């Protein structure tokens, strides 16, 4: 009876790696997995994710199975009359399981640096394609207009519908008007907090035409959940035509007196 109980508990602990691996194995097939990547840099991030997943997966299975095996084998009920091993440790083992993880972790850190620098540090030398100003609970957009400069009267103002040319590096100038927000583009593997008082550059290149979610990922108040935008990639000619049409629409309905412009220009 005692043995059965011991086996039961050991098997319960074996279920952790078995079901754990199963969950991750099934997840992609039920579409609960990384969303489609439509960015030029995303595959680099995804492959790092898979690399860490494989590495931690091996360690996870190895340690959990070891724990199961020890519970199975060293159950007191199968060791009647024996004593537990009297051992206080092993210097060799300590050295081994310090050095190997240390080297692995250090390698892992160094291995990540290039991807990080590409997304966050190697800013392309170009003027902003668009300014995104986060505000409770919307994304205000400002395109530079024909003169290519932000903050001039020919700027185009829009809300939530971010349209950008595909297959081109774009530079977003990210600002916030009120509280913290976070500009999260799941399909482009982009996330950057918008901070009041700061202008933060964000750059990426879309690789597919189509339309995807913009999500706010930093708590910004009661309406945080509905701070939704759309990012749409179109071809360059389509983009130019769209920009012209939108500018014309803006000029016909709102001459120069801009209610929003004054606030945005802060």
């Amino acid at each position, binding site marked *: 009876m005692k043995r059965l109980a011991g086996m039961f508990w050991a098997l319960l602990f074996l279920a952790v790696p078995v079901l754990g691996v199963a969950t991750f194995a099934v997840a992609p097939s039920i579409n609960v997995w990384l969303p489609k990547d439509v960015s030029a840099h995303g595959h680099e991030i995804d492959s790092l994710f898979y690399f860490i997943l494989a590495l931690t997966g091996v360690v996870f299975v190895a340690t959990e199975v070891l724990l199961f095996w020890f519970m199975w084998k060293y159950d007191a009920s199968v060791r009647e009359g024996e004593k537990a091993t009297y051992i206080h440790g092993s210097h060799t083992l300590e050295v081994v399981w310090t050095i190997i993880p240390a080297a692995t972790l250090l390698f892992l850190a160094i291995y990540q640096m290039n991807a990080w620098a590409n997304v*966050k540090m190697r800013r392309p030398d170009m003027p902003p394609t668009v300014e995104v100003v986060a505000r409770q609970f919307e994304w205000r957009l400002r395109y530079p207009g024909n003169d290519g400069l932000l903050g001039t009267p020919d700027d185009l103002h829009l809300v939530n519908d971010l349209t950008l040319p595909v297959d081109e590096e774009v530079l977003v100038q990210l600002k916030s008007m009120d509280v913290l927000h976070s500009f999260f583009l799941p399909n482009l593997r982009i996330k950057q907090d918008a901070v009041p008082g700061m202008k933060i550059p964000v750059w990426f290149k879309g690789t597919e035409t189509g339309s995807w979610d913009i999500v706010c990922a930093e708590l910004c108040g009661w309406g945080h959940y509905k701070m939704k935008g759309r990012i749409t990639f179109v071809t360059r000619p389509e983009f130019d035509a769209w920009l012209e049409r939108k500018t014309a629409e803006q000029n016909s309905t709102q001459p120069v007196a801009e209610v929003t412009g004054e606030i945005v220009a802060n």
Partner: protein
Amino acid sequence: MSTVTVPTTTDHGHAPVKKTGSLSTFISTYVFSKDHKVIGLQFLFSTLLWFLIGGLLALAVRWQVAWPWSDVPVVGKLFAQEGGQMAPEFYTMLFTMHATVMIFLVIIPILAGAFGNFLIPLMIGADDMAFPTLNMLSYWFMWPAFIAFGASFFVEGGAAAGGWTSYPPLSTNVASAPGSGWGQTLWLIGLTFVGVSSMLGSVNYMTTIILMRAPGMTMFRLPMTIWAMFITAVLQAFALPVLTAAGFMQLADRMFATGFFSPEGNIVNNAVPGPGGGQPLLWQHLFWFYSHPAVYIMILPAMGMVSDILTCFARKPLFGYRPMVYSIAGIAGLGFIVWGHHMFMSGMNPALGITFMVSTMMIALPSAVKTFNWLGTVWGGKIQFTTAMLFALSFVSMFIIGGLSGIFMAATPVDIFIHDTYFIVAHFHYVLFAGTAMGVWAAIYFWYPKMFGRTMNEFWGKVHFFLTFLFLNGTFFTMHILGAVGFPRRLADAYHYQTFHHLQPMNAFMTYCAIGMVATQIIFAINFFWSMFFGPVADRNPWNANGLEWTAPSPPGHGNFDFQPVVYRGPYEYSVPGVDDKDHLMQTDPPNAAAAAAAAASH
């Protein structure tokens, strides 16, 4: 460090209890007590009550995530403005207060306050803490915090709703959210009092552990629980002043129109802007300078207690005692230089992100060393599957998951995608619930006989363990793959996004598991209180463990020991060869094996 101790017979600052049975005696014994054991139990009962409240808040959060805008059962009518559904601002308040309650009113005080208080003097062989009055105050300073946090639910606008991290300007600007009114002010006041309580406790623990160890109790004969409590106290003493100062700065921003955390001309919700001149990121640096070490404050004591429980029920010495001590110290040291990993996406200079990535990767190392040593401890053991042991083993199993998932977030490029998604929610619940809370249950089942003189029911204990283990994995493991979709945390309703619209069934499954997990705790509560009165009476050492606390009566009387404990060895001498009549040598057993046998026979 010398091992000279304060004699146990001296007066330690409080009069002996008179057995008169009057009201004032009752108050001085059980209410304003200076006895570390009573204070420990006061902490335990208070924190368990808040654990229940925090758990119910979690259920309400889970309800909204699984079935947004549907009528909340049972309690819906209490808070609903529109029918029985919850408003989005109510939801933001729920998760803010769930985290606040669990972190500041449950985990930190149950580890340091309840177990630190109860165990430190008993395990080092002292009759009480070094400063009994400070100790009493450390408990009573929790009450202003209890009242502030509790009352904040009933003020206009409701309790704080800016997240437990309380990032400005959302938290400093009264106009930015309904909960940023009085609720936020009370939150800051509550936080300050929790800090005062922790500080009083940590000063006391450090002094007690350094100065009041029994003769023969050298630092390297201390049980891991005490090492962990000691290093936790050091962490608290060094990190906490920063949070307290930052809290006052935020309070000043709110009440005295200063501008530490808001830039100039920052208009929120069309309100008049404050004076500005500050930076929102400043708060994040100050907050995480405390709150990252606090993450270790929330796990190290559990690691210590689990080490003691594993050795006892594996009947085996701790594998690698010194590496275990050094790795705790390593975690604490490195813990001060990793705070920036909470801020990779914050707008902080990305070059700093690289520095913090390296330090964060390296802090995984001492955690890995600890895990390998726990496995080494179980290896070759003679395992008794008691409830306490099962919880301790599950701590190891679950901590592996929580530890490994942390590496994803430490890797800055991967963090770009999973930052602020359910991946991080999975990570910290594996560390704090599946880790610390399971460790706390292990400790409750293990030291219960010492606390109350009776043993908890083992059968129902195992049922409690089994169901909790099942449901917690059902709830939290699935969060990893939700995070892989990018499912963001803190959203009242994410299903209107094309990317997340198909995730409702999975969230419903998790909520069912969460309901099961909370319901399972009814078994624990009944077992806990029933055993207090009807459980089998425990003798001094029901588990045949080695620590000094097991030489004292169960429960120990005032002054703890009925003789002066003298320590001859470390706490993990199980299955010593050559000792044939029993499989362990207590710390107080005289060195001569024959004398040990004689002493055991005369007990």
